[in-house]
């Protein structure tokens, strides 16, 4: 870690056990990814980019229920670009940090510290050709898998560790009903068994006797009796006397110790079974039960850390419910459990801690991963960004590229300008991000960390001429922010001094290459100074039915009076982004371009998504 990064050190670092890093090699979509993690993981990315494969990679290391047969992968699991002749290895390495503060977790993980850093424990899965096989592997049988720790193959991971630092997969959430319905797999089972163990035998016998009476009463109804007799004789007829199973119609097994197995969850004050609940409610019930099971396992000292993996937990949940449930899971959770979810839900992404976000992106036949775990921003900046990414704006996290702008007017006009240039930003997956000021750097770090192409539209802000224009330092800071998360060289003091001395033309030309687009006046002035655009805007404004002051002003501007750009754009911003864009698209003749630096900023991103 360079000294510049230390001030961003995450506050909870070292205080609690957590997933700290994941590396994958040659597995399915992934040629090579190495990402920092911050405990919880929210995997975002387009369909088929490999979100489930990444979850499976983690399960290869940790899932105690995964059978050896599942860990024995297939040759088709190698990344497509692998040359099998070169004997590639599929590798998954999962690093834990912060375990030293909990003595039970330390006892489990201490043997697996890595040589380079004793505060990190690494658990690994490797699938590779068997040493005795000559030539490229012909089938899965020519390969073997090993699971080990500490970066040392001779340190196998004991099953006890996988039991105690365990991963639970809630895959088909859509089958919540099925999970709750089967006794063997139900998360209710251990909880019920525990609760029933606290009831004395005599009381259970009494309940059994009551139920038996109820059953007798039921059997006494002639129609029920007839049904039961019919069924019994039917079975007897089929099976013969020696194989008869003595079938009965009952509310519950007569054996007091089995009685509780027929207990199940009911909803709506006991009126309906869980099967009749909406899918969403059943999912919430299932997640709640899973968490209760984890807590119970920890209380019983069967577990020391739980990782709950859920694929698309938003399925069937109304956005409000999503917000409530995931806010609890992420932010009010137990320090001894973490959540790994895949999601397409902006609502979920908005409540997730920003540092949990991992973005997967297909690039040139491989999927790359971008993590915000180590996003080098101050806690205040982090708060700002998290506030910014409210439910409506968290689409940013799902975009393919971003244009950063200073204010509302730019945000409103940018999609219209893009349409005028023939680009549909929505279709291209490009977000316009209004930073409401000039503090671009945290957002630039965010976009660069997520691997998004981005451009910044900002003003030169020349001041009075005695000092360098503010736009210079701002641009250089933006570069440094980008460089700090993408492994590029930050600017030296000497380089900065040279740039400070340059003029607008040279400076803005040079920085266009890096995606910073400067305007020597202000955005407002350049819009007012683009005649075709001004006319169109005035036409649209005239149709708005503004009050008398504004109406008069518009009329004066039409009559060639000098336009007050700030007033003009205040009115534009009041129209609203969507409507304005549609109107301009209709009215602005195609090819009537927006100001040049804005067009360049749009093209910069559009060409790179």
């Amino acid at each position, binding site marked *: 870690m360079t000294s510049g990064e230390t001030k961003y050190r995450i506050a909870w670092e070292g205080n609690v056990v957590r997933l700290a890093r994941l590396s994958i090699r040659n597995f399915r979509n992934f040629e090579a990814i190495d990402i920092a993690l911050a405990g919880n993981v929210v995997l975002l990315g387009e369909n088929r980019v490999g979100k489930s494969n990444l979850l499976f990679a983690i399960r290869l290391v940790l899932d105690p229920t995964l059978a050896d047969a599942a860990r024995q992968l297939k040759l088709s699991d190698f990344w497509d670009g692998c040359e099998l002749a070169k004997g590639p290895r599929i590798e998954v390495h999962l690093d834990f940090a912060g375990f030293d503060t909990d003595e039970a977790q330390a006892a489990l993980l201490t043997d697996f510290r890595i040589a380079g850093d004793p505060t990190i424990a690494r658990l690994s899965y490797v699938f590779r050709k068997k040493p005795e096989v000559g030539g490229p592997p012909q089938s899965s049988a020519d390969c073997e898998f*090993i699971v*080990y720790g500490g970066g040392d193959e*001779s*340190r196998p991971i004991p099953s006890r560790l996988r039991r105690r630092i365990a991963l639970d997969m809630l895959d088909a959430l859509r089958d919540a009903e099925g999970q709750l319905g089967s006794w063997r797999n139900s998360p209710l089972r251990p909880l019920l068994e525990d609760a029933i163990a606290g009831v004395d035998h005599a009381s259970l016998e009494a309940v059994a006797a009551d139920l038996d009476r109820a059953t007798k009463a039921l059997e006494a109804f002639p129609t029920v009796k007839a049904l039961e007799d019919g069924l019994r004789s039917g079975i007897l007829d089929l099976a013969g006397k020696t194989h008869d199973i003595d079938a009965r119609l009952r509310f519950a097994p007569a054996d007091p110790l089995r009685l509780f197995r027929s207990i199940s969850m009911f909803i709506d004050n006991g009126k309906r079974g869980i099967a009749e609940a909406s899918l969403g409610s059943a999912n919430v019930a299932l997640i709640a039960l899973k968490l209760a099971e984890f807590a119970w396992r920890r209380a019983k000292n069967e577990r020391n850390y739980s990782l709950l993996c859920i694929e698309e937990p938003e399925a069937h949940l109304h956005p409000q419910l999503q917000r409530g449930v995931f806010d609890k899971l992420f932010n009010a959770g137990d320090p001894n459990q973490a959540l790994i979810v895949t999601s397409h839900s902006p609502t979920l992404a908005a409540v997730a801690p920003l540092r949990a976000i991992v973005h997967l992106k297909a690039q040139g036949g491989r999927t790359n991963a971008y993590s915000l775990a180590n996003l080098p921003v101050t806690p205040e900046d982090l708060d700002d960004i998290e506030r910014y990414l409210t439910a409506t704006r968290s689409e940013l996290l799902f975009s393919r590229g971003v244009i950063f702008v200073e204010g509302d007017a730019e945000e409103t006009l940018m999609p219209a300008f893009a349409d005028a240039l023939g680009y549909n930003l929505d279709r291209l997956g490009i977000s316009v991000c209004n930073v409401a000021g000039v503090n671009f750097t945290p957002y630039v770090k965010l976009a660069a960390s997520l691997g998004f192409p981005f451009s910044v539209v900002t003003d030169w802000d020349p001041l009075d001429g005695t000092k360098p224009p503010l736009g210079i330092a701002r641009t250089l800071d933006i570069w440094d922010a980008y460089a700090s998360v993408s492994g590029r060289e930050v600017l030296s003091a000497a380089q900065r001094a040279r740039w400070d001395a340059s003029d607008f033309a040279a400076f803005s030309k040079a920085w266009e290459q890096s995606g910073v687009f400067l305007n020597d006046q202000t955005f407002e002035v350049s819009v007012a100074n683009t005649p075709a655009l001004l006319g169109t805007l005035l036409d649209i404004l005239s149709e708005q039915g503004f009050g008398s002051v504004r109406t008069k002003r518009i009329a004066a501007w039409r009559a060639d009076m000098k336009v007050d750009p700030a007033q003009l754009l205040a009115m534009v911003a009041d129209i609203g982004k969507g409507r304005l864009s549609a109107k301009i698209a209709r009215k602005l003749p195609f090819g009537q371009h927006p100001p040049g630096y804005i067009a360049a900023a749009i093209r910069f991103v559009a060409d790179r998504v």
Partner: protein
Amino acid sequence: MSNHLALARALVDLAANAEQAAAVQERGHCVVLAGPGSGKTKTLTTAMARCLVEDVVDPRGVACITYNNECAIELETRLAALGIASNDRAFIGTVHSFALTQVIVPYARCLPGLLPDEFRVASRAECRAAVEIAYSQVFDDQFDPHDRWGFAEEKRRRDVDRSRPDWRGCNPELADFIEAYEAELRRRSLIDFDDMPLIAFRMIQQHGWIRAALRARFPVLFVDEYQDLGYALHELVLLLCFAGGMRLFAVGDADQSIYGFTGADPELLQSLVARADVRVLRLRFNYRSGAKIIRASMGALGEERDYRGRDGAPDGDLFFWKVIGDIDTQARTIGNKILPVLLERHPAEEVAILYRAAWLGDKIAAALDAKDIPYVRTDGNALIKRSSRLARFIEGCARWTTGGWREANPPFARLLSQAKALVFGGRSSDAEEQMLSSQLIAFLRSGIDSGETTHFWLQRFWRELVTPWRAIARNPQGEWDVCSEIATRTDPARGGDIALNIFAGRIEGTGRVSLSTLHSAKGREFDAVILFGMNAGALPSQRDRKTPTALREARRLFYVGVTRPRKELAIVYQDGNPSPWVVELYKRSQQG
């Protein structure tokens, strides 16, 4: 994992003895002073089992450090009866193996420059070579490097913490010698046995996270035979327990401290006893010996102790055999007269002949051979060294092959886990375990009904197991030469070969009298014991008389011998030339 019923029974057993019961229930630092036959091992194992069930929560565990592998094996067996297996939760082993497997192997690689990547334990020859090279670097004279090293070794064992002024303050030339020697070993990627606790001590002292990691895994540290364990262990205990937050449960008896030559010092145990933060419990009951023998033992020690026999226990008997003639005559007398009489009253495996040095064992062995009395030797010249894990593994394999496979005694699973520990030091991958397993089962099965004698079976053992295993071994404490040594000693050309089933009964077998040095007899007990060669001039010897410390230790050694029997003690010496301590013992035994 643990067997609650067995533990409950063991706790009930101890309830009648207030000190034992208090020790087992103790939750703070605790030292149990345990005289001969006082149920020390039972107290220790019950305390460990209770601690694992009640105090220490899975996945954390306890560590138990013992004097040697033999004690470790004994403790493992006793704990297994309480349902506790030596595994991730319970470490049982010597201070060297604790240092190596729990500190150096897991963590040294995290400390760059501390040790070479692929180090192993130096052989005797390699140590000697390093001593000679270091000597030539530090001293410019023609004396014997190994004589000088004797002094250096003593300093090395004593000055564990080299940051103290003593290290360079006294005998700085020896400090240079030691450092040059260690540097020479490292240059060759070697460590020696004394290095293990020293390196571990420095790692623990300098790195708080290692201290924390050890405490996380083992919140309680048990130490058996504290008086024999020396300075390195003592410093480790001070660091881990009194500075590092582990809880200490130590057991010992300063009267039985007989390992001064390996750096032990009874004062270390006394210094623990003197601490205000340690609870001291003295076990006063001697459950082993008759009252007569207990009284005599006070004479042997030359000091009074308030040990009491069990109520209603028989008094026991003392016999003084003065033999007219030299040591050979004394040995023959034992073979002809003394032993046959004892064998009429006691099964052979309950009778032991104890002596000071292995060469005396040769005399007795010859005398018993002449009378065709079967025996098992447990001294330095024994065919199978009780303290060698490899030797005991070989013996176990022989037992399996000669019939043990039928009733799984020993079980193959145990042999396999012993093999894993020998080859990999405990940790191995599944593939490695499978390979070991198939090699081992193939070898074992091929020996069944093959009619091989021990020598030829051992040669095959060497070819089929040792050769491939030593090539892949990761256990830095290889002792593979033990196998070839046994093969050499059973060479038919030397008349040493025996049937495999006889070899197989060497340790556990019944029907054999035990021959043992006094040192090796420590911790063991028999119905009847013959002390052989208790002559003036031998006990104490000239050498013992050189320093008061050595003289006291020799006397404690005699005391250890006297306290072994339950019922009968026979002391054999030259007529008119008994050891002065035998005389004192006699006088004391005559008092009430």
